[in-house]
């Protein structure tokens, strides 16, 4: 596989004073943070906090109203084509192509990212990440449960060995076992593949299990940023839920 060499910046994601408005509604109000290479970074907050908008901007799908986003050292969205092959994105409510089999869905995304000679190898890795038996992989994705679809989608996002994987609510709507599988896969393969992960969730438990550092976001603003234990100590809370509640009623904190 081809890798980005000589990156101008060791920081995988650098967001500076990012603002985004849809009409008169300001969804992001001056968000700034950095994600180090190889880190699993969680953006956590309630529905409507601006998590999806933030991730879409980092993925190059939305344009910021103001502020700067740099991914692997390149300005986004202006230079998205320079890093496109090294960034994968899993949208929150993504679905598979229902008329294609699970295997074909993996092959489609492998072909979109990898050179022709590497496609089989990438698909093989995708099969390993998805952990589904062969008969399931050869069925049309339209017959899959939500958990099976999500496994394939997470596999599609990680199998291409991206330098940065952006996962928007990867476990939303999944049962306990499927959610655990996805969390384990993200944790394991991000390390094995040396992939930086930027994930969003409204599940405080999840981010504390998976992420190296988190940003608590509310109404388009980051309330707290740092390692979970640092935030808890700073706020004086037992868990992230309690910390979040305290922060919403008070000011922010940066650990």
């Amino acid at each position: 596989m081809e890798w980005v060499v000589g990156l101008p910046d060791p920081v995988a994601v650098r967001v500076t004073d990012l603002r985004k408005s849809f009409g008169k509604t300001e969804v992001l109000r001056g968000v700034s943070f950095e994600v180090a290479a190889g880190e699993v970074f969680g953006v956590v907050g309630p529905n409507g906090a601006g998590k999806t908008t933030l991730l879409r901007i980092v993925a190059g799908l939305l344009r910021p109203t103001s502020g700067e986003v740099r991914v692997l050292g390149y300005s986004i969205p202006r230079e998205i084509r320079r890093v496109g092959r090294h960034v994968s994105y899993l949208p929150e409510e993504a679905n598979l192509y229902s008329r294609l089999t699970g295997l074909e869905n993996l092959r489609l995304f492998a072909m979109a990212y990898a050179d022709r000679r590497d496609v089989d190898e990438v698909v093989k890795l995708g099969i390993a990440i998805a952990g589904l038996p062969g008969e399931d992989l050869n069925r049309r994705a339209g017959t899959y449960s939500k958990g099976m679809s999500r496994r394939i989608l997470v596999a599609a996002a990680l199998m291409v060995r991206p330098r940065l994987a952006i996962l928007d609510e990867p476990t939303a709507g999944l049962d306990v076992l499927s959610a655990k599988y996805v969390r384990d896969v993200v944790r394991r393969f991000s390390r094995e593949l040396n992939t930086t992960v930027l994930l969003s969730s409204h599940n405080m438990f999840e981010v504390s299990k998976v992420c190296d550092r988190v940003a608590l976001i509310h109404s388009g603003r980051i309330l707290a940023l740092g390692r979970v234990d640092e935030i808890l100590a700073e706020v004086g809370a037992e868990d992230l839920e309690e910390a979040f509640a305290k922060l919403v009623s008070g000011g922010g904190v940066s650990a």
Partner: protein
Amino acid sequence: MRDLYVVLWKEVREIVRDRRTLLSIVLTPIATLPLLGVALVYLPALQEVLVAVVDEDSSEGSIGNFTISSQLVSRFVQRYLTAWGFVVTEEVEAAQVILRIPAGFIANLTSFEHQASVVLVKKLGSPRADQAVAYVEFLLNYVSRLVSEAKVLVLGELAGQDVRAEAVLNPISLRTVVLVPTGALAGPGEELRLHLARLLAVGLALVTTPAASYIADSLIGEKERRTLEKLLSTPISRSSFILGKSLAASLVGLVGGASSVAGAVFLYLVPALTRPTDVIAYLSPDIPAILFLSSYASILASLSISLPVVLVSPSIRAASISSASVIGLASVIYLSTLFINLDELRMPMSLLLAVPYASIASAVLRVSLGEPLRAVGYLAYSLAFSVALILASTRLLNPERMIASRA
């Protein structure tokens, strides 16, 4: 090219496995083209029209050796109308067309001083009744002609002059020669061939309908089914995304074109239902060929016209409206070819030919009129228009608009 292949790879698999859409694209022309022919050619001949002939004269007269009676005229008209499929009835009230032969008709008809008259009554509402009236007029003209010839001969005898009835009644002989636009003599079935070609042009609207829906669904359906955002986030370029989908839609066009040809064969069989017709003579190889190409061009035109609308306003509602508008525009233009040759309009209406559907319809007509080069020109224009619009549309793909817009 690699990106394009990836999109095409996906699209083709999705199309092949979408049996319902494929079936509708294949079956719509095959089922509806013959139905169109049945509706416009066969069914009118089956429509029952009641005709009554009322003889109020019941008399006989003669001019020289020529003898004629009102009963003879009445029977003559009734016999031919029956032979042509009209129903002759005694019930005058129920009749839609009434031929009334008044008292004194024969006396006036055989007179040299008076003109005989009949009354033809038609009740509004039936196109077939118009046909009955035209036939009655034709038959009465024939009778009128026979009487005129008899009168001319009598007058010639009285004048002691050798007379040829034709020279008196028709001093100018008119012979109509029908040519195709190239100047070649039109064959006996040429008008029917042209009529069928016009029906084929109308039939193109039927090919356009499922294709236009497919194109709208191909773009907006991705959003609906929540696959669009993931695909747009991949390194696949935006132009490859649009061009891949357009090429896939072209494949649908090829399928639609092939089934149109099959439907056309059935359409050409329809006239044989009403009268013995040498169908094969009208279905020369150029007709299926132009139909196939026209169907393809029509589908590509629908794609190119729908594309910018869907990309600029990518909501489900906008896609439905744009697809319905495209179908409506295509249908109106194709339907108009029943009555006019779109490429013979004067300015500014001749600008209508810039709309691809108008040039496609004109191509079908030109082939049936023996002008293949003009047809090729029209088709080439339409294809160039569509390709240019598709290429221009690739610049309109804005992920933010596609993702953030709502239904």
